[in-house]
């Protein structure tokens, strides 16, 4: 069922809303809350959640007789609706980042009102998942991100079956994010980071879609899911396991490598060219042996830009 989380007016357009899907048995609050599109240019998450809503609605409609949705799922494919339509990460009117406006309020700025409505709808869920991508310049392997997690969250994170789980501390810089606000409530909170902004990467999206279905099966929300064995191969990475290479020189970075490959220490992963002269000015190599978990996709490099991240297996 579609519901409007929030309806607002606009200066000269018709009013707008933030729609969500509520699927499964009616309860006072959802068992699982899934959010994407806090940033309008992170399309992978929007696509995954819209497809998941279609799938769960089909389950509800009886198109998959072996499956049964036994608990309520709330899905918000995109929070920054106008940002999606205008292809901007931030709220287009005042360029503020909605994921820096939490916990929000009903009486202050527009984006704080949006944040408040999203938090109210999701905070009581037992499992809360916020899907992001990297920026439009960088591609990340589909991964679960944990921020200052509980042991229960560490254990649950494995149930997605995604290739990597990355743990980070809960930085004070991020006190105004949705994740930070969620953590004040009972229940478990996860960020999924999937690919690159500005595009739909079908392979990543399909992988995360399967991960979400498998996850809903494992936590007992969707009954009848056949859980594949291959999903169990999960690597857990803490912050020290991440080895990054930053551009020491500006120029043009070009690489044909894909994320998710295991690389050897010293293995070449790309080249930096002088963008005027065309000569190679630096060969970029993997700093350690490990999983190539992220790589730069925008070729134009400033000094200091992150080029690759390799995670060393514990």
């Amino acid at each position, binding site marked *: 069922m579609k519901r409007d989380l929030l309806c607002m*007016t606009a200066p000269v357009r018709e009013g707008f809303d933030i729609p969500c899907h509520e699927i499964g048995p009616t309860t006072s609050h959802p068992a699982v809350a899934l959010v994407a599109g806090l940033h309008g240019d992170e399309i992978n998450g929007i696509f995954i959640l819209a497809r998941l809503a279609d799938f769960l609605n089909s389950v509800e409609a009886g198109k998959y007789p072996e499956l049964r949705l036994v608990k309520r799922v709330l899905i918000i494919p995109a929070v920054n609706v106008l940002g999606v339509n205008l292809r901007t990460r931030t709220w287009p009117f005042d360029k503020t980042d909605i994921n820096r406006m939490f916990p929000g309020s009903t009486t202050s700025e*527009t984006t704080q009102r949006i944040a408040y409505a999203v938090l109210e709808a999701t905070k009581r869920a037992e499992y809360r998942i916020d899907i992001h991508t990297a920026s439009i310049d960088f591609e990340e392997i589909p991964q679960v991100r944990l921020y200052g997690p509980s042991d229960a969250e560490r254990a649950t994170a494995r149930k997605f079956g995604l290739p990597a789980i990355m743990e980070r501390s809960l930085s004070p810089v991020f006190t105004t994010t949705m994740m930070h606000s969620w953590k004040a409530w009972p229940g478990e909170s996860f960020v999924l980071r999937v690919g690159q902004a500005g595009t739909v990467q079908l392979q990543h999206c399909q992988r995360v879609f399967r991960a979400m279905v498998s996850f809903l099966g494992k936590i007992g929300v969707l009954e009848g899911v056949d859980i594949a064995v291959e999903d169990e191969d999960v690597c857990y990475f803490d912050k020290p396991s991440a080895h990054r290479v930053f551009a020491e020189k*500006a120029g043009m970075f070009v690489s044909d490598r894909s994320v998710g490959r295991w690389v050897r220490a010293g293995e070449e992963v790309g080249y930096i060219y002088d963008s005027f002269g065309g000569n190679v000015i630096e060969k970029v190599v993997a700093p350690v042996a490990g999983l190539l978990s992220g790589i730069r996709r925008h070729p*134009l490099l400033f000094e200091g830009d992150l080029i690759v991240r390799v995670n060393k297996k514990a």
Partner: protein
Amino acid sequence: MPYRERMEIRRTVFGGGDGPRVAIVAGLHGDELEGLYVCHRLAAWLEELQRCNPGALLGTVELYPAVNTLGLDTLTRGLPVFDTDLNRAFPGSPSGPLPSRLAAALMSALSGAALVVDIHASNIYLREIPQVRINQDFEALLVPIANRMNMDLIWLHGAATVLETTVAHSLNSSGTPCLVVEMGVGMRISPDYCDQLVAGILSVWKGLGVLSADVDVPETLHTALIADDSNVHFLNAQTSGMFLPTTSHWTDVRRGELLGTVVSPFRGDILSDVRSPVDGVLFTLREYPLVYEGSLMARVMSRKGGRS
């Protein structure tokens, strides 16, 4: 930069004796121009001083009028390409990405100064009276200096609401006093406000011993009101439309007084009235007319401090 060009932050240094070193920072946001004009006025004053009375500059003055050079040159508030607010990148790191490198370079240049003034010009939406904003953690040190800055308002912010990644917070936390000035409006210059601040800065520099005690500086006539979380009232739009102020900025208003209306270009009637919630001073007023539900239109403070 990726194709040929190099990026640098330019500064102007006026060197005198061995006295204290002070600095002015402006243009961290590429849409804020008031600080650039203040730097121009200070440079003109200091050039004149060097011609007529070179011995009167006892210390060193550094002007950094345009930190976000790319933003200023391209009419962008943040750092272009990185889509980053430079004043959320401090203290930065010399080996990090560009915003972080610029922040680290500026931190290293400013550290140890006797006083840094970071000048902001609100944004393109709101007009502000000349004011100093201070984190309550650094209140004891900074308020006495701010009181001599010839500003009309000192706004004390609770520590919880302060952003830790600003240049001011990073400098104050590491022992270099830094005052944040907010005044005027984005993309414009308000010469009267700028001259008011120039007088305040010169007077403070004289007090610090950067300028000799016998040098003539412009008169300072303004006394600051005090604002904090207890006496500031925010007026956010109840409906979207066009905000039309019915009173002028920087005036005394009465409780219930009409400050403006919100109207629609499609209709002749008024969508909502905007009235003052208290007797006080209208110190923030919206300059950019279009509002969304929730957009800030004005701030009113009940009087506290200043001259009675």
